């Protein structure tokens, strides 16, 4: 449809006087409708050869379709290329910019809500058994064990760093508790070539891709070994070698960027896709609309994953949108979408595998809504007990815990034992504490890094400002922190 319209725009330019396509068609229609020879026109005969000589066959085909005589002429049915199944007998159809629509004498409003909510795809039951009849992608032992271990590491890392913030050792932290399955299962289903545009609750992807605990700690402490050179808040990880874009705090700004990255991949013809994350709150941002619309129009291979965890700081989803969650928005943009149980690692894995394959093969975006629950507070600056009941949090932390569920499955397959569990937890905890100690002791980035990378090369004004700052520090050495190298 879009092709036709863009071509018809060009063709409209040929014609004199210049008229808009819909106008054009309508004019022809009215001309012919008034002519007494109308009813003999149908199919081919309606064309004016001169006018249409420049048209492609697509346009011709359209014209033919359009000239199907209508039911106003009862009994005068001229043969048409269409079967009558295409529209109801009483209905007529009209071409508008954007394509053909049938019209109806009934004034019917589309309901704002359907009777049933879109169901979510789930594989594992709460007991760790696959639900009967469920279809999913098989996960081998190695992958499954790595997945489970990573979920455990993520959980422990979150807890320990959160504690570290509470102890005043780092300034800020943000956990992904409750969303470990989304993090890890997604990461496991992708390849290293897939570019990740995270929101901020997806460190599990970096973890899966080999980011070490020390590297996480370095970023949180903002020391000299941090890839971000200490310039961003904790948890704003970024690593080009892991194809993980540096996190930018404003919500949803990465969504329009996803189309650009996909554009890049398309130019390079890479067998990879872009994966852009957002939360339920992020879907209210204008960038969500813009990003999805763009990806759809430009046919960008982007996999949009919305982590609908029920809360945007203190705003529950009932106050965030009135639609049936996020999955229904996909169709509004012409994007295929699916809703999945985000706490079910196998379901998420299967979904992302399938979605990724479709995205790359068809070069079209797909929207995945992963339902979950934000077990932790929004961040260390938040106390969620102020706006939600504690027993609700406890329920999701225990009964609906994604780790427990997946663990049951892995355990049942004989791939994981309780000993493995305690050994892993003990070892990771030790590693994390060591990493924190090392990170804490590592020097902070030197003063020069305050001015570098603003531009590709240090411009004169910044050089001036750096000089001025150094002079100030020299004069007031005692007021300058001692642990920051000059």
């Amino acid at each position, binding site marked *: 449809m*879009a*092709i036709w319209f*863009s071509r018809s725009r*060009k063709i409209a330019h040929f014609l004199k006087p210049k008229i808009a396509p819909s106008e054009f068609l309508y004019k022809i229609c009215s001309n012919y409708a008034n002519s007494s020879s109308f009813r003999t026109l149908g199919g081919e005969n309606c064309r004016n050869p001169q006018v249409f000589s420049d048209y492609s066959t697509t346009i011709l085909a359209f014209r033919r379709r359009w000239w199907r005589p209508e039911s106003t002429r009862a009994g005068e049915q001229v043969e048409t290329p269409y079967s009558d199944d295409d529209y109801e007998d009483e209905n007529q159809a009209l071409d508008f910019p954007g394509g053909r629509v049938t019209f109806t004498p009934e004034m019917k409003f589309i309901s704002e809500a359907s009777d049933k909510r879109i169901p979510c795809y789930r594989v594992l039951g709460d007991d760790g058994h696959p639900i009967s009849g469920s279809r999913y992608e098989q996960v081998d032992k190695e992958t499954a064990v790595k997945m489970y271990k990573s979920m455990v590491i993520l959980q422990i890392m979150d807890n320990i760093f959160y504690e570290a913030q509470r102890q005043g050792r780092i300034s800020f932290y943000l956990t992904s508790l409750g969303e470990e399955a989304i993090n890890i299962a997604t990461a496991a289903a992708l390849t290293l070539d897939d*570019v990740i545009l995270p929101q901020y609750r997806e460190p599990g992807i970096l973890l899966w891709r080999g980011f070490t605990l020390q590297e996480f700690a370095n970023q949180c402490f903002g020391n000299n070994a*941090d*890839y*971000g*050179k200490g*310039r*961003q808040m904790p948890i*704003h990880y*970024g*690593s*080009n070698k892991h194809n993980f*874009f*540096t996190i*930018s*705090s*404003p919500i949803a*700004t*990465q*969504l*329009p*960027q996803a*189309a*650009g*990255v*996909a*554009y*890049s*991949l*398309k*130019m*390079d*013809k890479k067998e990879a896709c*872009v994966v852009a994350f957002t939360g339920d709150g992020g879907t209210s941002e*204008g*960038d969500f*609309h*813009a*990003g999805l*619309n*763009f990806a759809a*129009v*430009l*046919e960008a291979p982007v996999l949009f994953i919305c982590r609908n965890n029920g809360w945007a700081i203190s705003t529950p989803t009932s106050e965030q949108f009135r639609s049936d969650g996020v999955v229904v928005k996909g169709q509004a943009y012409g994007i295929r979408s699916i809703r999945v149980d985000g706490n079910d690692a196998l379901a998420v894995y299967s979904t992302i595998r399938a979605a990724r394959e479709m995205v790359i093969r068809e*070069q079209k975006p797909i929207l995945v809504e992963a339902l979950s629950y934000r077990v932790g507070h929004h961040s260390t600056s938040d106390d969620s007990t102020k706006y939600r009941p504690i027993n609700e949090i406890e329920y999701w932390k225990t009964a609906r815990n994604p780790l427990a569920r997946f663990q049951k499955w892995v355990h049942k397959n004989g791939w994981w034992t309780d000993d493995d569990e305690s050994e892993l937890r003990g070892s990771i905890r030790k590693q994390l504490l060591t990493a924190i100690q090392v990170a804490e002791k590592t020097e902070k980035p030197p003063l020069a890094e305050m001015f*570098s*990378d*603003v*531009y*590709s*090369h*240090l*411009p*004169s*004004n910044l*050089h*001036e400002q750096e000089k001025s700052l150094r002079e100030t520090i020299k004069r007031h050495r005692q007021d300058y922190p001692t642990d920051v190298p000059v």
Partner: protein
Amino acid sequence: MAAAVTQGIGATAALSSANSNKFQFTTRRSLSERKGSSFVIRSDGNPRVDLNQHSNRTRQLVTNAVSTKPDSASASTVSKPGHELLLFEALREGLEEEMDRDPHVCVIGEDVGHYGGSYKVTKGLADKYGDLRVLDTPIAENSFTGMAIGAAMTGLRPVVEGMNMGFLLLAFNQISNNCGMLHYTSGGQFKIPVVIRGPGGVGRQLGAEHSQRLESYFQSIPGIQMVACSTAYNAKGLMKAAIRSENPVILFEHVLLYNLKERIPDEEYVLNLEEAEMVRPGEHVTILTYSRMRYHVMQAAKTLVNKGYDPEVIDIRSLKPFDLYTIGNSVKKTHRVIIVEECMRTGGIGASLTASINENFHDYLDAPIVCLSSQDVPTPYAASLEEWTVVQPAQIVAAVEQLCQ
């Protein structure tokens, strides 16, 4: 759409192997070459240029920020007769040359593809490079600017066209929070070599929303560079420099200057993004200006010369950062400064420039800096009112006369 995409890929593939032989000349401009290492300009105006004496990089046409011969920065010294064209065609020529040279350069914007752009700057490019490299987008400035940033972070060099600079206010979030910042916050891991360009300034009765001077709003964003072109010659040169720059650059064009005709050299040339242009050397007063106001100033200069004054006119071109070397030398010579701009009085480029000159060259001034700018009003639609919101040559003449008493 599928057809368009295939065509795009085909064109790109063809180009990556192509080697445009047309543009392998060197420039005759005698500006020293720089590899791209940092240079230093002290506030007292003395340059200390790190001339990187690497090989005869005749193909690297990025010139030094500091001209060792300030005068040569002025008129185009051409060896050959050159060719005549209009400013918007010069922009296109620059864009086309860069797209030939580097297959990563692409254009993104509304109606830039087959429509050729609202001001015809990208006319013909979609046919030549395909729908993918000259990309039409839906109407969402924030979106396509964000898209350009994402593309830049993964290796492309997008040129974003805002149909009118005013619309880029919708992209302010992406420009400020991401474009200017991500290179820094990622620790240098991701670079953002985008060029954001579009027409701005007061046109002929385009109304308040289409007469914005966005350089005022963007000047504070760290991490971006801003340049304003005013002639066909510098339009092409700045376009090429902006595309080659590793930093995000905002190129301000002016709606009323697109049809300026000029003869420009045939050989390839690239101008320096941080350099000001000496339009008319003089002795009595330094007039700093840029973009369309340059022409009002030159018109006033004619009158002033007849009255016996000798104004030095400098087109500052680089709005961020200012070329304090050229400006400083001029101030030291004339000791009087008038800034003529189209921005509003409050918070405009003139305001920053005034502060900057006062800070750095206070001792050399014999009189306070005079800044002629537009009033702090939305641009009226009525032609008579619109005319008086923009600084006119008569005002410039009067200001010079008063300053030089």
